[in-house]
């Protein structure tokens, strides 16, 4: 690390206590101030400051505000207005700094030690609780507004915006969702073949693959990718609009921000995500089929016949039925966090991260809830 002390090439600053006069000289600059501070404090600790009544700084060759502060501080420690003479050109500097000021000690808002830890836990708990309540409030508001929008779609439903969102979140996500689902299919089939071979039941790979991809993996992978891709985009877009005061401008013009910004995103994603999931299911199965072809020499028709025996339309529907719910949660969280953005640069990034984490968390929790529900219903 370069330090200003290392690059300084001025003569050393010095001070000397002599018969009640503190003589100082040299370059009293920021480069020397750390050392001078230590030495002056040591002098103070000796109680030597009681012994002088005057500072003679006439031999100072350079003085900047850090050095001037040290001189002024030393004079203050002398207990009053002792004489302090500096070369004439530094008069204005001293005058400028010598104003009444209370150097308020820097204090953290969090108390130290165990109490601090308790404070943090309490604060985080209150924050999480407040977050939950306000998210529920938001859910309520969006539900009411959606009801109104659906009751009179001609006025409140913005078809162009919805179509745009379907393109943005659905069609533009096809390549990445397709590739990743394909790879997941390949990996699942590969692992399953390895294990099932030991029992000579390698044909059951197809059954396992079909059920896992259709029921769980397809929709879960797609939702997580979309949360990372579109949920974060919603937060960033709306957050940036908030920073630019665009949302305030819309409100003053009487535009309903839920109708114009939130609903198109939610409806768009609720349309796009099930379609994406279906596509991901197909790509996952294709990946598995190709793996089976190379690993087990299982031809595609054999694979298809085996798959037909293993899964039904119900299996597919169990996966697809979850997609609109996940889409709603992702879009809701994305928009909600976007509206929470404050008018500073750090806020957008912070809330975008939070939006992704929260929506992925909620998607997985809901998926678990669905699993429990389905097993109770015996589906």
């Amino acid at each position: 690390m370069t330090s200003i002390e290392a690059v300084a090439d001025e003569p050393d600053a010095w001070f000397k206590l002599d018969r009640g006069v503190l003589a100082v000289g040299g370059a009293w600059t920021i480069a020397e101030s750390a050392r001078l501070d230590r030495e002056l404090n040591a002098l103070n600790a000796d109680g030597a400051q009681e012994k002088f009544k005057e500072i003679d700084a006439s031999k100072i060759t350079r003085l900047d505000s850090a050095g001037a502060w040290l001189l002024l501080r030393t004079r203050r420690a002398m207990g009053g207005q002792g004489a302090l003479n500096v070369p004439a050109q530094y008069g204005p500097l001293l005058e400028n700094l010598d104003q009444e000021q209370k150097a308020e000690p820097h204090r953290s808002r969090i108390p130290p030690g165990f109490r601090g830890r308790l404070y943090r836990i309490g604060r985080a708990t209150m924050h999480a609780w407040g977050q939950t309540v306000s998210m529920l409030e938001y859910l309520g508001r969006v539900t009411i507004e959606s009801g109104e929008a659906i009751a009179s779609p001609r006025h409140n439903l913005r078809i162009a915006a919805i179509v745009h969102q379907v393109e943005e979140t659905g069609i533009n996500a096809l390549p990445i969702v397709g590739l990743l689902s394909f790879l997941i299919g390949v990996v699942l089939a590969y692992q399953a073949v390895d294990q099932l071979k030991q029992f000579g039941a390698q044909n059951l790979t197809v059954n396992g693959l079909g059920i896992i991809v259709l029921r769980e993996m397809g929709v879960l992978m797609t939702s997580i990718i979309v949360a990372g891709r579109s949920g974060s985009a919603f937060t960033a877009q709306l957050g940036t609009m908030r920073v630019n005061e665009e949302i305030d401008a819309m409100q003053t013009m009487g535009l309903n921000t839920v109708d114009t910004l939130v609903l198109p995103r939610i409806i768009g994603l609720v349309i796009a995500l099930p379609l994406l999931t279906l596509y991901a299911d197909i790509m996952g199965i294709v990946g598995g089929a190709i793996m089976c072809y190379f690993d087990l020499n299982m031809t595609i028709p054999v694979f298809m016949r085996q798959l037909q025996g293993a899964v039904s339309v119900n299996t597919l529907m169990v996966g697809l039925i979850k997609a609109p719910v996940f889409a709603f949660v992702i879009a809701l969280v994305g928009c909600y966090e976007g509206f929470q953005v404050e008018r500073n640069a750090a806020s957008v990034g912070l809330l975008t991260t939070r939006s992704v984490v929260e929506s992925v968390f909620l998607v997985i929790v809901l998926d678990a809830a669905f699993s429990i529900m389905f097993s109770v219903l015996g589906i």
Partner: protein
Amino acid sequence: MADSTGEKQPIIRIRGLVNGFGSNIIHDHIDLDVRRGEVLGVVGGSGTGKSVLLRSIIGLIQPLDGTIEVFGNRTGDVEGRAMRKLEMRWGVLFQEGALFSAQTVAENIQVPLREYTSMSQALMNEIAAMKLTMVGLPADTANKFPSELSGGMKKRAGLARALALDPELLFLDEPTAGLDPISANQFDELIKRLQKALGLTVFLVTHDIDTLRAVTDRIAVLVNKKLVIGTIAELRKNDDPWIKDYFSGVRGRAALASMDPASMDKV
């Protein structure tokens, strides 16, 4: 420094500077000297590259051609350690203050102190408090976050941070933009006072004609991709239509009409 009046070597020396984006040339071979201890104002219409000029001097933009010397060092050539050494000798106030939003004002001011000095925390706190007093902010600002400050206070806090290492050269990018006239006046006064007290050389980008009148010694006007340099009195005699408009328009006349003989002396 104010004491070395005999020294006339320029602090910033620009020769044949060309800046541009793609085929769009903004500065066409401009020359500029900034002398020690002076306040140089840079003005120009929107899009003439005032901020680009500032940014190319402090090394944020690589010029297409030409040389820029600051304290005798060519900024294009120095890198790493030598560049750090240069950067310690100047302070920059960006338009919106550019305070680090995750840190309190005191912590913002202490960033360069912590990075470049071995000061104790106690001394850094004292220095931060001193800088705040210097720029006219109340002591309790130290523990506030930038988002809790008004625009004018942010600029003052940004100025305190720019002055943290006691630089010799100060760059100000539109210091009074977005301030009400009273705050702008106070900011002008502050710049003038600090410039005198600390013996600063100031490179000031602005379009506020009141600021120009109040604090600058010389003015560089960016017109037609070139620089026209002079005092206010000299520039008022200039024939260029933009300069004429600028100094003789309604706003310009009003601002200059209030020029009293005392400030004429300075010019």
